């Protein structure tokens, strides 16, 4: 049985009539801390019971593993230290789902070998249901697309590698 809001109200009424400034209550099912603050009380509560699964989630966990049986530690699209010399890594601004094209079935924003300008949109990363555009931020050529379309990427994971135009041409443009 969990503590209800009604229970908390009753406890609070009792407590408010006393000189105590803090109450901490803990059972194996919940913890509750009530503290007197300037203009009233605060509540910090937690449910301590373990969830009661109806079925073992094992088969579903197995189904969630990417095809090819790669474990999370060896996913090829997670950033690693082996940055290719001279190439600029475009990284995920946030953790989310990587999309190469503006909508399913349409042409990708960029392909390997394609030229990009400073404001070219390279991909989308969907985080918490919001589409975030990944913009090149430099002029150059796409050398590698490191993330797989519609797959989850961690924050700062390398999405693409771009060979920048030389500093000379950048400055003269």
């Amino acid at each position, binding site marked *: 049985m969990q503590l209800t809001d009604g229970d908390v109200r009753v406890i609070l009424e009792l407590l408010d009539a006393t000189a105590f400034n803090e109450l901490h209550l803990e059972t194996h099912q919940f913890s509750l801390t009530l503290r007197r603050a300037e203009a*009233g009380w*605060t509540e910090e509560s937690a449910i301590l019971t373990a969830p009661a699964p*109806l079925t073992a989630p094992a088969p579903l*966990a197995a189904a969630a593993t990417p095809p090819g049986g790669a474990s999370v530690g060896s996913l090829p699209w997670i950033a690693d230290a082996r940055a290719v010399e001279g190439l600029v890594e475009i990284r995920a601004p946030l953790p989310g789902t990587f999309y190469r094209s*503006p909508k399913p079935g349409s042409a990708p924003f960029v392909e390997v070998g394609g030229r990009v300008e400073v404001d070219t949109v390279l991909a989308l990363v969907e*985080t*918490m249901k919001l589409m975030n555009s990944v913009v090149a931020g430099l002029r150059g050529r796409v050398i590698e697309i490191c993330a797989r379309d519609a797959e989850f990427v961690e924050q700062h994971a390398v999405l693409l590698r771009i060979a920048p135009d030389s500093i000379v041409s950048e400055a003269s443009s």
Partner: protein
Amino acid sequence: MSGRTCVIRRILIANRGEIAVRVIRTCERLGIETVLAASAADMDSVPARRADHVICIGPAKSSSSYLNVDAVIAAGLGARADAIHPGYGFLSENAKMAHACEAAGLVFIGPTEAQLAAVGDKLTARRLAVAAGLPVVPGGEARTPHEAHVLASHIGFPLLIKAVGGGGGRGMKQVHAARQLDETMDMAIAEAQAAFGDPRVYLERYIAAGRHIEVQVLGDGEEVVHLGTRDCSIQRRYQKLLEEAPAPNLSESLREAMHGAAVAFARRLRYRGLGTVEFLMDCERETFYFLEMNARIQVEHPVTEEICGLDLVEEQIAVAEGRKLRVSQAGVKFSGAAIECRINAENWTQDFRPSPGAVTRACFAVGEGIRVDTHMQSGAKIPPYYDSLIAKLIAHGKDRPAALARLADALVRTEISGIDSTLRMHRELVRQAPLQRGGVTTAYFEEFLKSRAAIDAGGVR
């Protein structure tokens, strides 16, 4: 309507977050057993701990779990549930879900399949509104870039691109000029496909000086009652941030007209369940337009509960059991004012960048007239896969100034650490004079952000 009644003893909750906790609370009070259908990422969430049982319906990605009709139905049958509560978002307004429930012998706690199909397709809903005598915003469907340009030339700029399968503020984009139309259409179509599984979009005139006012309705398939207005004009990019009931600074004649329009729309549908009819009020013309109907419980439902003293989840369950409405229009009594702040896991000083992670400490205000709906507790995790709402702080008072004062105090006492949240933003927002006066338009929040940025820039110099 068959007129059958049943008794719901065990509910599968096909949702997550604060709304899952909210539904569990009512079920606990009513003695209904709960089974939470959770993704692999939510198996140790607060609702998973609080529900009587939890069942895993798939991996973290919502398209494979919370949006997977087959997985949810299988969980409902496996859990031997009598009914499925879909919460908001996910499958809550999915006609296929309602159909699959019926086919599986499970009660869907929501409207009928036909009603969901009618209001879920926002273009059909527009036509129904016109048929029921409600005014609509100029606009229509755009199937191709060419159609969009032709339509846009009639509507004029700025305009809005809306997802036909959207709603609840999702899948809307503003376009300021014709040259942005193609690019924004592409983005809107991509988001519509990702969020709703339906790439269709439509265009509507953008009304600059508008207030977002909605009417809560409840129907049993025959009778419909309204539960008053809510003002949800404090929005950023069409996401509501602060809501209140009743809508302040509104003439009684306009309020009555909105109540009447909402009831007329729901009656025409012979609506069964809890729903919200959304209106855009044109402040300059002192008139209003129908926007859409949301055929589910809404995030902001607590402000209505606070002013009318009803438990809307309980009423949802009652009409889903096939019972008649337990309240008459005359029996609905309103008392005072209530305001809700949505606290999101976002950094509001960095363009509302999402901030998933672990909450090290969650400490909320408690006391008379204060309510917190949350799935946070110290140590809880906010996964990056879902939306950023972490808590709703609701204050109720004898009138609007009393509710606002209570809310301001409660915000100061509340503390959430470990992640970025919009808590501090709300502390500033509720002190602003326009908000204190009430009745601001949907343009207000951007002005607030700009004025605050100007203050910050001034401080640097």
